[in-house]
């Protein structure tokens, strides 16, 4: 699978897509991209696009699964057939890799969503990978955070996520699919205010000292992502508040006219 034909880092210190080692891919965050979901978002990082829609809190589909003192969280992960041409992810239902991604997302958000506020209910997080070019899990986690915010479900903090690779001694941020194949990589997601890690996943051999360096670099990158995400959320909220003001002005005008008469 690993193709040594691509040059991870060329003589000029650039990566195969002309990024510098610590440079993230271009990101775009959109809120409310699903017509019927309570909250949804579409996040694009480089060529990876993920749409997340949140349904709930609602009555659990299976009564037996309900918990009397907190909400339960379901995560469904799907990959559209055209997300990745040829190899890579197989689209079979019950694929172990997708199941694992789903479990990771659920476990990441369980301590962050204030589930005790929604007893006897269910929150379904539906993740659709629309195009895959590495970093599906980090992108999904970022999208889920935004979708939860847009749905108005109470969460403790922003969770952002990033993948970190290591080439020789040089850590690289936000890996693309090709880099992911060739490099040891670590995925972390963290609570940005308290700077604490909720998820850390690594699959390849790495010496401890390098690991620490990557961990700290990842935390920094997560903070940067949070700033970007907050910008979008604030912009969106500002718009809503503005509209609410317009409405209140109209209604106050209307009532004022009534008095005049």
């Amino acid at each position, binding site marked *: 699978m690993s193709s040594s034909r691509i040059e991870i880092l060329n003589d000029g210190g650039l990566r195969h897509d002309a990024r510098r080692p610590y440079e993230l891919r271009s990101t775009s965050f959109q809120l409310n991209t699903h017509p019927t979901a309570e909250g949804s978002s579409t996040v694009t990082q480089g060529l990876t696009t993920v749409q997340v829609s949140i349904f709930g809190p609602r009555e659990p589909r299976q009564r037996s699964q309900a918990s009397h003192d907190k909400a339960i969280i379901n995560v469904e992960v799907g990959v559209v057939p055209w997300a990745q041409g040829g190899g890579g992810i197989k689209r079979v239902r019950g694929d*172990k890799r997708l199941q694992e991604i789903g*479990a990771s997302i659920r476990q990441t958000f369980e*301590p962050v969503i204030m589930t005790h506020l929604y007893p006897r209910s269910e929150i379904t997080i539906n993740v659709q990978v629309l195009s895959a070019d590495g970093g599906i899990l980090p992108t999904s986690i970022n999208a889920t955070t935004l979708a939860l915010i847009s749905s108005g479900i109470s969460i403790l903090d922003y969770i952002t996520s990033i993948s970190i690779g290591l080439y020789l001694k040089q850590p690289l941020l936000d890996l693309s699919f090709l880099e992911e194949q060739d490099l040891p990589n670590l995925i972390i997601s963290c609570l940005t205010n308290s700077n604490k890690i909720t998820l850390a*996943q690594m699959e390849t051999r*790495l010496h401890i000292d390098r*690991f620490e360096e990557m961990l700290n670099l990842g935390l920094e990158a997560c903070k940067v992502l949070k700033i970007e995400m907050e910008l979008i959320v604030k912009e969106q909220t500002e718009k809503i508040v503005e509209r609410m003001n317009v409405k209140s002005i109209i209604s106050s005008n209307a009532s004022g006219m009534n008095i005049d008469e």
Partner: protein
Amino acid sequence: MVREVDPPSIQKDFLLAALAEGKRLDGRIPLEQRKIEFIFGDELGNVECRIGKTAVLAQVSASIVKPRDDRPYEGFLMINSEIGPMASSIYENGRSSDSEVLITRLLEKSIRRTEAIDREALCILAGEKVWQLRLTLHFLSDSGNLLDCASMASMIALKHFRKPDVEVIGDEVIIHSPEERAPVPLAIHHTPLCLTFAYFENLPPILDPTHLESTLCAGTLTVTMNAQREICVLSKAGGTPLSAEDIMGVVRVGVDQVREMVKIMDQALEKDRESRVIEVQ
């Protein structure tokens, strides 16, 4: 899926109160493992590993197959690990639960993806014949921390296993039966072992959680390491958020622990070797 009955809250309170004083219900200190025990079967590559009351039986067998066309020099290592209802009533046959998927995937990552076994050494005749190793895990009883037990069982079974000696003359392959020639051990690069830590709110981590501890904990962290101070797999999904220092602390504890475990494994293997006649000089 059968949902397990939650432990009573009085038991939970008791366990948490004890942990707050640095004590565990089975008398261990927080970073202590349960007693590790190995039971070697009659055949080579058949080992049962026990950590406390958790037991996993690993069985390695080898057969000769044709390699893949794009990798003519590489043998195969297949890991079969299905958790049946024998381990615990929460596991069902044929349907894999979330925890089962995690265990299987982590095992696969820690043994196969870290290249613990030299797969090129399994080649007999390039493009024609290679060894296919099959590692079958039987989960006998689940009393918490199945993963660590399974990873230890797998590694010791692979170390214990010996494949028949083969001789290649031109295009002809002669397989010598164990009576004829002593079987040869596998080429093993390193010994990755899993260590699972459980976290409780505002309490220091504990190593090797029992079943009760793992149902009540706020999250677990599994790190696979080898004796060469390398992290092979790290998996922390959810649970209490940790700072980078916390994670590094756990990893440092892991280094010494894994060395200790490898030592125990080697001693057990050595003892078994003395009791068995494999080589006739």
